[in-house]
């Protein structure tokens, strides 16, 4: 399927989704849906580095928060419309992604994961001590009540996140089918052999961290408007890091479909649990589902389908990826 057709189909699906949500007449649907869609973007972004290249990033929250705090910083200076904030956040998070990549990509496996986790801690400390964006007190963003012609502002935010999610899966799918996608796969499999085959591994890894970071930043840009009150400890919270890893792993990491399925499934489960049980049970659900999947279906739901269809599932998801595979010793 060609990309314009792919985008068109998803726009139609998105349009139907939006229309149905409006028809339901309950704005809570938009509040819940926004979060699920936000995780579609985060999961897809994580998967570009984690799934395609095999580098596990535990710092998703940092990139997400960077996007959110870019919005806050700009809001304090002069409030801009969200469509303008998106590219700004993308640039900020993308640049940090590039920088992080440059500093840490010599590390592999668990060491890379720890370095990315450290990035989140460092950035949180910075934000806590930066008074302009509210410091540890947090920052208030006044969300407008209505916006023409959509109506309630939450519907507008939902729509933005919906378009962003479509954008993210389109980017992921484009990468998968391109030269870049093949290059990423060789990095995941064997970097020495990749170099020997002429793949410029460092440049590709930097491309991946930049794209991944930029997408995460974009997911965070509208967040202050959604939440109204932005607090460092929750914005840099573990939820984002864990969810953006768990969702692709549950869905399957070798294709753009995986993070999408994982985010829809796990994201909806969490939203339902928040309403029916309690909001604290969220991460417990993620933990249990993740453990179950790693043991029973290590290739994710996509892998399950591949096995079911008697095709060879791609031999590289979940279990092995999380191992601390050190760079192979040179023979």
């Amino acid at each position: 399927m060609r990309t314009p057709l792919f985008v068109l189909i998803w726009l139609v699906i998105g349009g139907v989704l939006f229309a149905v949500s409006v028809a339901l007449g309950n704005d809570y649907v938009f509040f819940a849906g926004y979060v699920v869609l936000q995780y579609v973007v985060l999961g897809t972004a994580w998967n570009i580095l984690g799934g395609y290249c095999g580098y596990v990033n535990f710092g998703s929250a940092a990139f997400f928060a960077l996007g959110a705090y870019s919005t806050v910083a700009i809001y304090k200076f002069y409030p801009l419309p969200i469509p303008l904030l998106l590219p700004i956040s993308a640039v900020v998070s993308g640049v940090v992604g590039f920088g992080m990549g440059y500093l840490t990509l010599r590390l592999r496996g668990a060491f890379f994961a720890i370095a990315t986790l450290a990035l989140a801690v460092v950035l949180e400390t910075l934000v806590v001590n930066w008074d302009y964006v509210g410091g540890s007190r947090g920052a208030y963003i006044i969300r407008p009540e209505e916006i023409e012609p959509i109506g309630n502002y939450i519907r507008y935010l939902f729509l933005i996140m919906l378009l962003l999610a479509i954008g993210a899966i389109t980017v992921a799918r484009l990468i998968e089918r391109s030269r870049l996608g093949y290059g990423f796969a060789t990095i995941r499999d064997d970097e020495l052999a990749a170099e020997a085959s002429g793949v410029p591994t460092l440049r590709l890894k930097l491309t991946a961290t930049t794209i991944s970071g930029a997408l995460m930043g974009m997911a965070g840009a509208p967040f202050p408007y959604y939440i109204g009150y932005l607090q460092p400890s929750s914005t840099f919270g573990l939820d984002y890091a864990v969810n953006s890893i768990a969702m692709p792993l549950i869905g399957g990491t070798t294709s753009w479909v995986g993070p999408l399925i994982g985010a829809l499934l796990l994201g909806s489960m969490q939203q339902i649990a928040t309403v029916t049980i309690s909001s604290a049970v969220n991460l417990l659900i993620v933990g249990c589902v993740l453990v179950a999947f790693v043991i029973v279906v290590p290739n994710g739901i996509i892998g399950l389908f591949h096995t079911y269809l008697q095709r060879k599932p791609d031999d590289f998801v979940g279990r092995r990826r999380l191992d601390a595979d050190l760079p192979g010793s040179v023979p």
Partner: protein
Amino acid sequence: MSELLQIDNLGKRFGGFVALENITLSVRAGERLGLIGPNGSGKSTLVNCICGTLRHEQGSVRFDGRTLDGLIAHQRTHLGLARSFQLPRPFVSLSLIDNIRIPLLYTVAARGTHRAAREVEDRCSDLLREVGLQAKAHHLPRDLTQVEMRKLELARAMAAEPKLLIADESMAGLTHSEIQDILTLLVRLNERGVTIILIEHIMRAVMSFSQRLVVLVSGRKIADGRPDEVVRNPEVEKAYLG
């Protein structure tokens, strides 16, 4: 014939251990060179220094009229250096045909040879056919036998359309007829103008393949010349038989 590869006074240490010491070696374009030596004599280290996997501290490597020192491995591959690994290192999540596709997409394309997707596809199939793996084109490397894995390794190196191919122990552990298969492949490649350095323990294979033989012992080059003369060299005999 002109020099394709020129190694000058190359030295490499791992901490206090001298892996290679003052290696000087030149390989002419179109030559078939055998490189032998006992285990741990530095053969693979030399390959790694030539290909940029390891950085040497001393001396220089020139290839095709330009110095390689400081170039990263993939840049050397783009210049026309290809290698196979001692232990096959296929891309495990990619099918065989996609394994072959990588050098075509990244190395051949980087040289400015533009190919349409269809042509790349055909070229991949041709290469797989040449090594007899076309039937498994859409399988994953884990479905391969040991000899097939080595053929894949060679096919992937060939796909980069190299000027110089370094085959690092591509026959270890294979049967007589399998060795013959690989040798035939290498000779055919050489006839098309590719210079080949063969690193091997199996003497019968090395002797039948090489036009010239170089012996490394403890990181030093102790012999370099016609194969039949080199194996009669007392120093070589001593190194091998003690």
